[in-house]
């Protein structure tokens, strides 16, 4: 059933994406938790709502050359370039370990064509035990001059449509959107109309750092994705705008969450749960810290569940 047990019987921290219920409101963000094993030495993965795996492609990918990261004020740039073993080896190595360790798993997928997303969905519909699929559409579309899917409403819709048609009934589809667009609400509308059960907001912002000594972009890939507390106000805004437009679509909030306070901000803005990305790097136990602090803050404010707090900032 995709339900993990949690220690709290008195306080309901669950969220629901499609048909799946997740008992803890804190997830790990795609690409920020390794294969799960690496964090598992710091806390039990069963404490998470789910592990969202690093976006996986059909084929193995070496990713981008190094340097792949640059620290920025209250943030960082990364340009990993979706390094990964490809779906086959991923399903063979990573998934069994996660399931054996009773982690809830949401598989994040990435493709270069609509058809690749469709193929990935077909592969995943047959995999028992996973709890959802996150569709990372912040990837360049090779069939359209490399324009990122998430920047184009039509392409975004096509991808989710293809995944929906190929995934079958049960697995919730979470569409992960990019903030680098003029109108995130309209992109959200498109993917919802194509059948997304939930939204992940937000992916990184496109940024660049120049090394003043080499006089070149610091990252080998030149641009990179900006993440961390620096972008939190942009994430909160995106969540607020999208929740205002689509009250019934659950949102997984992310972008600089490092404390319970940060998580609460996103929940008040309209997120049903949050994901921890960059904060894992600075603090391997960040997810547990966020979860504990969030519970304390919610209880102090008289909420009996996370659900009650979702979107309260929209009340007049």
């Amino acid at each position, binding site marked *: 059933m995709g339900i993990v047990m949690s220690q709290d019987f008195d306080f309901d921290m669950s969220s629901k994406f499609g048909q799946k219920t997740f008992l803890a409101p804190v997830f790990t963000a795609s690409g920020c938790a390794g294969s799960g*094993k690496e964090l598992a030495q710091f806390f039990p993965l069963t404490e998470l709502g789910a592990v969202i795996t690093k976006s996986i492609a059909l*084929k*193995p990918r*070496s990713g981008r050359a190094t*340097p792949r990261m640059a620290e920025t004020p209250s*943030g960082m740039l990364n340009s990993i370039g979706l390094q990964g073993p490809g779906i086959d080896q991923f399903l063979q190595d990573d998934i069994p370990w996660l399931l054996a360790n009773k982690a809830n798993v949401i598989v994040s997928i990435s493709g270069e064509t609509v058809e690749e997303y469709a193929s990935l969905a077909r592969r995943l519909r047959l995999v028992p035990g996973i709890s959802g699929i996150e569709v990372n559409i912040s990837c360049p579309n090779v069939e359209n001059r490399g324009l990122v899917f998430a920047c184009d409403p039509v392409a975004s819709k096509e991808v989710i449509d293809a995944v929906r048609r190929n995934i079958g009934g049960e697995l919730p589809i979470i569409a992960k959107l990019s903030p680098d667009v003029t109108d995130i609400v309209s992109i959200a509308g498109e993917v919802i109309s194509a059948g997304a059960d939930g939204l992940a907001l937000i992916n990184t912002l496109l940024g660049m750092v120049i090394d003043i000594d080499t006089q070149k972009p610091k990252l080998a890939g030149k641009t990179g994705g900006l993440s961390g507390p620096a972008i939190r106000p942009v994430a909160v805004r995106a969540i607020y705008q999208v929740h205002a437009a689509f009250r019934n679509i659950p949102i997984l909030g992310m972008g600089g969450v490092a404390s319970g306070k940060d998580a609460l901000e996103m929940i008040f803005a309209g997120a049903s749960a949050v994901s921890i990305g960059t904060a894992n*790097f600075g603090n391997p136990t960040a997810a547990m810290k966020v979860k504990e602090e969030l519970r304390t803050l919610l209880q102090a404010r008289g909420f009996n569940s996370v659900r009650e707090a979702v979107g309260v900032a929209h009340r007049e």
Partner: protein
Amino acid sequence: MSKINRKAIQADVEVLSNKKVGAYHHMVFAVGDMALHARPGNFVAISVGGNNSSMILRRAFAIYRSSDRGQYGGTIELVVAPHGQGSKWLTGLQIHDQVNMVAPLGTSFGIPTEPVNALLIGGGYGSAPLFGLAEVLKERGCRVDMILGASTAGKIYAPLEGKRSVNSLTVTTEDGATGVKGRVTDVMSELIDKHNAEIVYSCGPMAMLSAVNEIARTHNLVHQCAVEESMACGIGVCMTCVLPVKDNDGVVKMLRSCIDGPVMDGERVIWNSSRKIPEGTWGS
């Protein structure tokens, strides 16, 4: 396949001592049980900048020495160069200040089961992990010779107690202020021959490691090196610290230097691969 260091612990630890030594700071931390499983080559990851820091990533430092007993319980010692924002903050700490540390992390130097002649080569603060390594090698009955190089005298870190654990120490500086004028690789071949070195250990800047590897290769010597790539997490979750390395089957993969390293088999590393993915790398 990856070798997660399952001994890693996260804790707030206390600064016991912070002394300027040449261009570096020798820092001692009271770490309790964290010291128990530290091996030469392992590193620590430290949060920098304090509570209101705009620096969100940890900084990695090679463990210079560790001790699991003594007046203050377990201790870990580091040699830190005040370089940029983070390391300057760290070296500015006072005794009794606290920092958050995750350690021990990464792989450690492989120790030969038989006594062999080892040549240890360090560049700058890269000497830090080599003294602990030298002690272990000596205990195993190895002959240990060491070369330390730097641009100038102040950047040679070679404390007295460290020198005791080596059979010979050769110093090179680029400006010739102390020791031989030149680079570690200028004296390396000669010392390999002189001491019949059978294995090379190195730690220092990537360019040095690459040059050392080249010479070790021409002498057909095993070369264990501790690489230094920019790390965002130090614990294997971010994939920023990778470098191309041949696996057992000869396939080149982008491996994480925080988990499959920092100590790697020099022969397997594809050197000089910054800003490009070597041809034939798996998945590219």
